[in-house]
């Protein structure tokens, strides 16, 4: 739910890797992708689209909080902030000023798995953007004063999104409880005491570890030609030397052998429930069936969970689910906000009953068809902007291993059967495999006592 951290907060989250494509889209290939791997190992994907005079440029680095260690949790995210705070040619503050003065804007986000840099700009700013990106990949500097003030910014971000946000707080506790071995157990933003104690050396080490060009994928979508992008890459990016990528994350989370429960007591108007189930990583074949199952359960007001919890029984204000793109086995999270004076456990019970129903009886043909249609429209929604497309192409390339999977998604979804849906429901949504986090309003509890 809060696994994605942005340099500045955004309205639109391109978090859900919604995968669906049509044969129409795949066949027509209206916007073909050109690719090239630079001599230093960075792969570049370009998709021209001249419908607006703008460009979206994304750089995905395969480094995130899963590559961190206790004591320096949150370092990837902090580093993401530092990537805007000065390099050799563009000193502290220059990057943003120069970019905005040329009509551009930027942001960046960090997840458990990746750190992604985003630039949006008019075509005229293209050479400048490459100069800026090359400068900071090659020659980032670490100004102690900037480290000190940025540390405060990140602390404020944490207070905003975790300490003063019920959803953020509960989400953090859920991951910390569901994972006991794997590095998904700590928050992307980091524990507050780690935020306070990172050192300059930690930052330098992180840069050396994660920021080799060979550890990155660049995606450019918009008012460009592949030739001009490849030329700019040859000039600005290719000369940057490559080095060793981050060491592999070898820890495997052991199978969960029984339900885990946790409670957070906090002043609040309403309770909140999150239930996390361990599921496979993004490139697992179960991915498609799992998405179809989640559509049937959670997508739209005709979905089973909405009908049951929000509409018929009126137990919850809303109910939803999410799975973030992940390199390693991750969590499918169900979130429900119980209505005033509804016992959170009544919500929980209804959720489990609906899960049992999809396990014990096959879904209908109509439901399967509906889920496939929904995935298709969602795909179009992501593909209709140069920004959404840059993110989606990059996400497929990085998490599925090949952007071409984008064009196979229609086929992969059409192959999902009712049996598949039932099978993944049984495989993942069991009591032993779940962690249940509940936030109970403190004031209400006191009143009850």
């Amino acid at each position, binding site marked *: 739910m809060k696994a994605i951290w942005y340099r500045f907060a955004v309205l639109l989250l391109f978090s859900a890797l919604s995968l669906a494509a049509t044969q129409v889209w795949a066949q027509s290939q209206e916007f073909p992708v050109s690719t090239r791997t630079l001599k230093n190992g960075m792969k570049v994907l370009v998709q021209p689209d001249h419908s607006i005079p703008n460009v979206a440029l994304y750089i995905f680095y395969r480094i995130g909080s899963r590559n961190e260690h206790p004591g320096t949790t949150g370092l990837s995210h902090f580093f993401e902030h530092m990537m805007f705070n000065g390099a050799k040619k563009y000193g502290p503050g220059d990057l943003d000023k120069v970019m905005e003065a040329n009509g551009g804007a930027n942001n960046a986000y960090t997840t458990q798995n990746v750190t992604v840099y985003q630039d949006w700009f008019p075509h005229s700013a293209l050479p400048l953007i490459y100069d800026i990106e090359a400068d900071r990949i090659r020659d980032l500097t670490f100004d102690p004063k900037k480290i*000190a*003030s940025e540390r405060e910014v990140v602390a404020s971000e944490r207070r905003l999104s975790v300490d003063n946000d019920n959803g953020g707080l509960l989400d953090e506790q859920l991951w910390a409880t569901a994972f006991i071995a794997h590095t998904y157990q700590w928050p992307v933003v980091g524990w507050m005491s780690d935020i306070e104690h990172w050192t300059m050396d930690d930052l330098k080490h992180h840069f050396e570890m994660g920021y080799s060009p060979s550890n990155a994928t660049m995606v450019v979508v918009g008012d460009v030609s592949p030739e001009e992008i490849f030329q700019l890459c040859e000039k600005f990016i290719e000369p940057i030397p490559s080095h060793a990528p981050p060491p592999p994350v070898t820890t495997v989370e052991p199978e969960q052998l029984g339900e885990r429960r946790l409670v957070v007591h906090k002043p609040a108007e309403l309770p909140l429930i999150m239930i996390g189930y361990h599921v496979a990583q993004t490139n697992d074949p179960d991915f498609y069936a799992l998405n179809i199952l989640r559509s049937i359960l959670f997508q739209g007001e005709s979905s089973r969970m909405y009908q049951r919890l929000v509409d018929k029984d009126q137990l919850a*204000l809303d109910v939803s689910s999410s799975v973030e793109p992940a390199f390693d086995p991750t969590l499918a999270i169900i979130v429900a906000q119980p209505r005033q004076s509804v016992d959170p456990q009544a919500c929980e019970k209804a959720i489990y009953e609906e899960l049992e129903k999809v396990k014990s009886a096959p879904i209908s043909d109509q439901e399967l068809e509906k889920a496939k249609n929904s995935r298709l*429209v969602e795909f179009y929604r992501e593909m209709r902007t140069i920004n959404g497309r840059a993110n989606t192409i990059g996400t497929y390339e990085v998490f599925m291993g090949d952007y071409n999977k984008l064009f196979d998604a229609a086929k992969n979804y059409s192959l999902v059967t009712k049996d598949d849906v039932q099978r993944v429901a049984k495989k993942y949504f069991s009591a032993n495999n779940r962690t249940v986090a509940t936030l109970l309003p403190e004031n209400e509890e006191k009143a009850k006592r």
Partner: protein
Amino acid sequence: MTRKGQTLRLLALFGLLLALCPDVPAQSLRLPPHEKLVLKNGLTVLLMGKRGVPLIDVFALVKTGAAADPAGQEGLASITAGLLRKGTKSRTAQQFSADLDYIGGSFGADAGADFTNISAEFMTKDLARGLELFSDAVLHPTFPQSETEKILAQSLDGVKSTKDEPQAVLGLYFEGYLYGSHPYGRPSDGDELSLKRIQRDAILKFYEANYAPGNTILGVAGEFDSGEMRKKLEETFGAWPARTVASAAVTAVPPSKGKKLLLIDKPDATQTYFAIGNIGVAVNDPDRVAIRVVNTIFGGRFTSDLNEALRVESGYTYGARSFFDSRKAPGPFEIASFTKNETTTPAIDLALQVLEKLHKNGVTAEQLASAKSYIKGQFPPTMETSGQLARRIVVDEYYGLGDDEVNQLEARVDAVTSAIAKQIIEKHFPLDNLVFVLIGNASAIGPAVKKYADKIDQRPISDPGFWPPPAGAQK
């Protein structure tokens, strides 16, 4: 809520331009061609065919919004909109959802201060079904009693849930404190007391009085055949009986005089959320483009004066910004940020210093050039999708702004000079008359923030309503 989100919101909320300069040729940015027709029943229809992905977006604007809610029944316009899909002459709420979800369509309906908006999106191949569903909700809602009770109870819990997020309610308290009993001061989604007073009869009356073809503008954008679209619109919306509707007028309010401060106590807050401002401008204000340029420099982007001072240089916050939320009558101007309890007054002091500096120093030629490039460079992605375009042409039509709002944007931005910027600062950026609203831990920050105003008000966040306290709101 901060930088990126804000900027997008700014661009979306107020595409404000100015009739200062004559036409300049060679504009690079223009609205795609579109046509306007008025059906026999008085419905204004705007059609824009657009290549891209095979989606169609429909956006209907009913020219009555939350500002028309009767005092004490705040939320009426929103609830009415929310119930449109919850039962029609031919479908139950469940059937509507099932039909909509089956085609992967989306549907949304909500009321803002000035108008109600209803939107839908579906695939081109589902045009007939999608348009029929959309028109069914707008033309034939039945407002079943059970669904009405359900949505009112859910909305009430929704207000409570929102109060768990200080940032989400800061604007509501601010507008309430700024506008008082004026319609723009009322919470458009209602509060814990007003939602209990709304009855089905009032909803029916509101619908009958305001949902009429002559009071509605309908925009459609996306991949479609124009002839087929006209035919389908005639079949659906053409059958909507004409009705006379009294037009809703909103009176302008003069800016607040002097300084006053409202402190909303949230005892567990470790961070103070603050808004400072006054009443700003109307959506058609002739200064709107120049204001946008100056505000970009002051608080409308990452390198703005406010964000530079409060985030980049001092590390007080994750984000600081300012915006003009322009409406039919003058809407609010607001500076907003948040900081930990300990740095509450240093951060507010700094925000005020940045404002003073703007008045003292104006803007540099370099800042002006940068802001112009930034606005022009970031504008095209706000008009990229058929959803954005359908909304844009309908809202501009409603406010009487016309295509020049987009087509002349670049020329109007370019026409803003340092001298004009100076006048804009004097006229539109308040310095001595300011309204402060803070949400935070009153026992930690209360004594220190008294210095900002002579008039101080305070109430707990858990008390029902926002501001002014509704009758019977004391717990």
